[in-house]
């Protein structure tokens, strides 16, 4: 599904990622852990076309995304739930969802997909015509996920979807992710909330200072002494 090979990138001249190699298999949930400033968001942005890779390869179902023009990446099957949600605050909930369906592949199905999102997140359906910026943080996060699903992705990238949300909402969102995954969606999940993330995911990577410093099944990572000290607060 997703193959990242020796990816390097950064901002201006400042290199942030160094030879990152990682993968997500079909139907897998993989989590990416790491301290603040490790480069997790940078990696997500490089995958979703917000930031251009400097070198290395990103293959999605054997299509090389590093050679794809940024606005065509969503069409090839990656959708992102960005850090801080980045919904369009002055647009209605429905219009935010429709932007998710902008790419040529998903656009013809936008009507059915909007209905589907409203079934997944009934709270959004009560607020269809409300401006997105006037909603609570949890509702905005649901909207960001809904918008990404509108793109009909085969791989969903989520960058700290639980940040700043009440535990009950986080639980609800993780439940939705689990459900979507059972329906076949592959997921790459960046989380600060490492225990929750490892419980949901089958595998994980640890990123530090722009380098992958550890990887393994959730069980292995949960048992790793050093990790437990650094991220799990155990």
């Amino acid at each position, binding site marked *: 599904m997703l193959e990242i090979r020796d990816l390097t990138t950064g901002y201006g001249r400042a290199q942030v990622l160094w030879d990152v190699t990682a993968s997500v298999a079909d139907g897998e949930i993989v989590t990416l852990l790491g301290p603040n400033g490790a480069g997790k968001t940078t990696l997500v942005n490089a995958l979703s076309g*917000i930031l251009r890779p400097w070198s290395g390869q990103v293959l999605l179902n054997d299509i090389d995304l590093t050679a794809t023009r940024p606005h065509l990446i969503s069409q090839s099957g990656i959708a992102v739930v960005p850090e801080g949600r980045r919904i369009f*605050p002055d647009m209605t909930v429905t219009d935010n969802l429709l932007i998710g369906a*902008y790419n040529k592949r998903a656009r013809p199905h936008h009507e059915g997909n909007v209905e589907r999102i409203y079934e997944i997140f009934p709270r959004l359906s009560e607020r269809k015509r409300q401006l997105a910026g006037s909603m609570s943080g949890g509702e905005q996060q649901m909207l960001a996920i809904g918008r990404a699903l509108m793109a009909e992705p085969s791989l969903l990238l989520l960058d700290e979807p639980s940040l700043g949300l009440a535990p009950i909402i986080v639980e609800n969102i993780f439940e939705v992710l689990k459900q979507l995954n059972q329906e076949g969606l592959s997921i790459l999940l960046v989380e600060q909330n490492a225990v929750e993330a490892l419980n949901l995911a089958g595998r994980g990577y640890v990123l530090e200072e722009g380098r992958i410093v550890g990887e393994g099944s959730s069980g292995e990572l949960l048992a790793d002494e050093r990790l437990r000290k650094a991220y799990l607060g155990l």
Partner: protein
Amino acid sequence: MNADLLTQAAVSGALIGGLYALMSLGLSLSWGALENINLAHFMFILFGAYVTYQLTSSAGIDPLLAALIVVPLGFAAGGLLQIFFEWAKVDEFKSLIISFGLFIILQSLARTIWSADFRSLDQSINPYVGSSFTVGSVSLQIPLVIAFVAAALIAFGTQAVMGRTFFGKAVRAVVHDPDTAQAFGVDHRRVGVLLAAIASAYSALAGVLIATFQSLSPTMAVGWFGIVFPVVILGGLGNAVGNFLAGIIIGVAAGVAAVIWGPLSASLVTFSIMVLALLFRPEGLFTRKAAI
């Protein structure tokens, strides 16, 4: 003060307000949606008017039919300028400075081509100028009625496109966050170029309508500042219908002020309205904003 005179001033003001709105819409869209304070729109209007004048006076084309040539030219010019702005990574402030330079250069080009003398299409070739009809005691100039109707159709049409189509939603998404819009498949360069081209086509059309009833001179564009900026600010950047209503408000205010205090007071009044709007409603009278 004669009530008939005031009514006439208000009605004529409202009608010409439609034209003011059309003259302002290009700048409003450019500023609001592309973050370019693109003064070249004044030149798209001026050249729209002069090229119409030229087509009618030398080729005998009906001035309104000249729009079929002038509007596509405006569309192309605006699109090309936006391609340059994208390439040069021009921000809001630089766009103001660069387009001010363009304003000066193109204004002297107009003077070189058409001289500083007033140019106008007289009635022998221009069926619109001087024609009017009366309703009650109020006289309505036909070219202003045409401009008003065109402006109304364009304002509401633009609003519908912005609100209902994928293109319109993409424009609004790009305004707020081009990177995220791009991650969902919006080619923000292409959207920008298309929008700039449409905006410039509107300005060129405003020029065509001006040529149907006004005398042209290269310096007239400077006088439009006192109209266009107040309309753009009052209407709310990028808000097509708000811009149309603001055009009418400014048109009526300027017309009535001219009757009561004399013609020189008109720009004092319109600029005062603009300053009040900037102080108390900087997002314009008609724009809906999120609470945050």
